[in-house]
């Protein structure tokens, strides 16, 4: 988000608030790509992601006159996009709740050390780690996460937001974010270890 705030300076906030259409078009071009990709990660569906993208800017354009600049414009747009994405996911899965109480207290949430896969696949060559097939696997693995964990992982580890920003965007406490982040990371590490562990075996046999 740091890189964005640099380009953000080139936008004229007053013009945006006054509904200057040329400036609005510039804002859309500046952020639409990032927002679309964020939505795609959340929904894993291009049509849904496009809906989120359109709704985000429609809402933003309506709300801009009241934008007070307490957060940066990009954070503000992100917040709208995240809410839109979550709303859409909830519509598809009405029992989805981000703030499920006491999900962090369940004992089974911290895996035991004996359950961990211990393949040391870090040494695999880059072209193996970054192959088309690997990328598809990464995408699939993240979609296996429940939305409550996935959203935290996307914002913190893929988008690179801080714990505080992630908490703020999702309406969670920082402790909550940290607990979910740990679970999401461990889950994905396990999935990737299973996958790359196999690649490692093949590679070592070569």
């Amino acid at each position, binding site marked *: 988000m740091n890189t964005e705030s640099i380009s953000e300076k080139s936008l004229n906030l007053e013009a945006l608030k006054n509904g200057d259409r040329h400036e609005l078009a510039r804002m859309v071009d500046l952020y639409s790509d990032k927002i679309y990709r964020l939505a795609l990660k959340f929904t894993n569906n291009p049509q849904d992601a496009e809906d989120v993208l*359109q709704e985000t800017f*429609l809402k933003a354009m309506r709300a801009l006159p009241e934008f007070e600049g307490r957060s940066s414009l990009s954070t503000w747009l992100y917040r709208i996009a995240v809410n839109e994405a979550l709303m859409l996911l909830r519509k598809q899965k009405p029992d989805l709740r981000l703030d499920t109480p006491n999900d962090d207290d369940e004992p089974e949430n911290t895996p035991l050390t004996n359950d961990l896969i211990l393949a040391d696949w870090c040494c695999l060559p880059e072209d193996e780690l970054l192959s088309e097939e690997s990328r598809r696997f*990464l995408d699939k693995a993240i979609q296996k996460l429940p939305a409550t964990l996935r959203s935290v992982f996307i914002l913190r580890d893929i988008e690179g937001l801080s714990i505080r920003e992630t908490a703020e965007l999702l309406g969670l406490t920082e402790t909550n974010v940290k607990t979910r982040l740990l679970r999401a990371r461990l889950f994905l*590490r396990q999935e990737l270890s299973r996958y790359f562990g196999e690649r490692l075996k093949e590679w070592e046999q070569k």
Partner: protein
Amino acid sequence: MTGHLDCQHLLSSLSDFVDGELSPELCREIEQHLNECENCRIVINTLRKTIDLYHHQTEAGGLPQEIRQRLFYRLHLEEFLSRDSE
């Protein structure tokens, strides 16, 4: 591998450790444990790599043209479509 309790303890601080959010004392303690425990070393390294792979996975390349076009129409900004996307 040293005592099991250490590994289990490390697991719960794992995220904070890779994010560099632990106190220097705790970090030293963990690093010492890592020197002696290969399994935990693997877990930490593969965890870091996992985060790293996801972080760098986001492809750039701009919004697909059709999607940009539909977006601009939906926002009634189609008159600005001809401008190259920045």
